[in-house]
């Protein structure tokens, strides 16, 4: 416990140092040709920070999905499949409503993405609770099913018209650097950041959250206290699925504007890494998502700048190597919710 606290205060310090450096770099003008002018913007420039946030949003939403499921005792390695289904449903809805006013059409599509993700969550819950399927298998099934169905149903001629654009928040967006990065974003980005706080409060400061955590740690005890274990697991997995669906919606309706086969490209898995890295807490997972997003931004900036001498494939490895180092060096042994992955039935049979 002590070690955990030390680690999180270290991370907070690092995060503050990062923000301060970023503000300093973006508000100072460096001499033309100096090493500062060449290197610092690559690492701390507004474009790198924007890229970081864009890359982090789907990871944050996916990680929140993972947290909700695992906190209630359902292991979910199928986040990738839920995201992909959400992306596809959002795309189909957008194409079907292309002739509507842009924001009405986009809103309906977001709802469709979340509903599809929620359905996948329901499926995962049915498999693992009702039919007692191994949850790792169920998650794998979701991924294969999503990849197969979306590819089979995808009509390559369909085109979605328009996507969410940045909405500047009055006053806040005028703050130098921070306003540019945090308060000039498209809607789903704001929603994702707000959801982090919402899930945190819900999990740790409400009766619902206490019960969810009890169900994930010690379902027998929760049951004795009159908590309906499986109802909580269904609820959490479905809500989690909706959040993963929203992550897919973000990709189609805010980031890319179109659907591509397999467009989630491993983000569900990296979300899973963020869940573990963040020690099953929303803010921890957000920090981890930002870190992963930052390494992707860094990779992007370094590739654009064309760092001489280093093959670009090695530059592209940065996010993955950093993830391994982070998980191995910073996280160490973590403890998932105790009952995560275990079927619960009243008579005590496993």
């Amino acid at each position, binding site marked *: 416990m002590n070690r955990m606290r030390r680690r999180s205060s270290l991370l907070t310090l690092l995060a503050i140092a990062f923000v301060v450096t970023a503000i300093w770099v973006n508000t100072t003008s460096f001499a033309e040709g100096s090493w500062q002018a060449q290197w610092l913007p690559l690492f701390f420039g507004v474009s790198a920070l924007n890229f970081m946030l864009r890359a982090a949003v789907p990871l944050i939403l996916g990680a929140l999905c993972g947290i909700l499921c695992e906190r209630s005792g359902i292991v979910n390695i199928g986040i990738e499949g839920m995201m992909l289904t959400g992306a596809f449903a959002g795309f189909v809805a957008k194409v079907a409503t292309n002739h509507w006013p842009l924001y009405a059409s986009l809103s309906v599509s977001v709802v469709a993405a979340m509903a599809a993700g929620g359905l996948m969550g329901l499926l995962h819950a049915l498999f693992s609770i009702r039919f007692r*399927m*191994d949850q790792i298998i169920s998650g*794998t099934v979701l991924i*294969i*099913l999503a990849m197969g*169905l979306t590819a089979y149903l995808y009509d390559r001629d369909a085109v979605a018209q328009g996507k969410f654009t940045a909405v500047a928040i009055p006053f806040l967006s005028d703050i130098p650097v921070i306003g540019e990065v945090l308060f000039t974003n498209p809607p789903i980005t704001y929603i994702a950041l707000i959801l982090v706080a919402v899930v945190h409060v819900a999990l740790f400061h409400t009766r619902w959250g206490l019960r969810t955590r009890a169900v994930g740690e010690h379902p027998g005890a929760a049951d004795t206290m009159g908590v309906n274990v499986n109802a909580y697991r269904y609820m959490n997995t479905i809500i989690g699925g909706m959040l993963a669906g929203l992550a897919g919606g973000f990709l189609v309706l805010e980031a890319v504007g179109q659907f591509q086969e397999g467009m989630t490209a491993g983000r569900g898995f990296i979300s899973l890494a963020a869940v573990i890295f963040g020690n099953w807490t929303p803010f921890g997972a957000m920090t981890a998502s930002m870190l992963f997003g930052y390494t992707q931004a860094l990779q992007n900036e370094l590739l654009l700048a064309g760092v001489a001498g280093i093959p670009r*494939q090695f530059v592209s490895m940065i996010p993955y190597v950093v993830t391994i180092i982070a*998980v191995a060096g910073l996280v160490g*042994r973590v403890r998932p919710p105790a009952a995560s992955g275990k079927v619960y039935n009243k008579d005590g049979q496993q």
Partner: protein
Amino acid sequence: MPESIKRIARAVSSALLVPIMALIVAFALGAVVMTLFGDDPVAAYQGLYDGAFGSAKAWARTLLKTTPLILTGLAVAVAFKAGLFNIGAAGQFIIGTVCSVAVGIHFEGTPLLIHLPAALLAGIAGGMIWGAIPGLLKVYTGAHEVITTIMMNYIASLFAGWTVYAGGRQGQSPGPLWDPTARAISETPDVLTSAQLPLMGNPRLDLHLGIIIAPLAALLIWWLIYRTTFGFEVRTVGRNADAARYAGMYPRRTTVMAMALAGGLAGLAGAIETLGLNHKFAPEFGGSVGFEGITVALLAQTHPLGVVFAAFLLGSLEAGASRMQFESGVSADIIDVIQALVLIFVAAPLIIRSLWPGKRSSLAAGTKTQ
């Protein structure tokens, strides 16, 4: 009939009942999906059958698709036995490919009896190292193998991409295995004939020695897991690492060795695919065999011999898919849907049993990954 034979017959029929029912229900549901979206399931399944079993060429294609799936399936299954989820078979496969190519394109004039085993061993060794790293990280730092193996997959494909990179842009130098005669194309030269797996039978069918090596590997792994001390340790650690430690075993060593073994199997898959079929490496040869290894292992309920049958099932689906698309116009992606459905019904026999009226006696839980 003697009692023992009856008992065996009963055991076999109950072991086969669920998979066979699962197949039937999955194909029926696949047909429903196709009908719903305006495709003709009869034509599709006819094409699928023709493509997988319709001719000698089709059979050969099925066997060739099955071979790497057996090995990547074993790579996932062995790790499961040790309580580890190896999502990294894809990366271990790619590294195995690259290492075997590196040996296979060099050392001209070496006799086949030395060159071919050396190239195969290089692939195995590369895969073992790639698999052992997540094992070591898990043991010494507690890093979860699900995350590290996924990251190792990305690193592996980037690394492999670099080895065959044609160079060019921004004055970057080409990769060490790149074939200069391929000009702008990123690929390696062909593996020397002394490192290629010999063909068997009609050379037009491309049936190489690998299709025998893979089932033999499954047999070897079955023996290793169920008939040796090492296998006993692997299974004990997989069930309960603390109990294994109290029993005087070394769970850390077993974990690393199991991951290395898993990686070696996936690496062998890559080596066989290269030395037997492709004869060179290009980034697009990475494929999805690694990920499909997970499906194979789960379908087989992690049993090494079951892996052979599960790989054959998936291999035949994949062998028939392109023929199906060509003959009936049904997108080959429906194969993935059918695979997922088969997996669902094998892993959750309760679903199938609940379709069976009256027979509620054996509500056994579904497949376990360990």
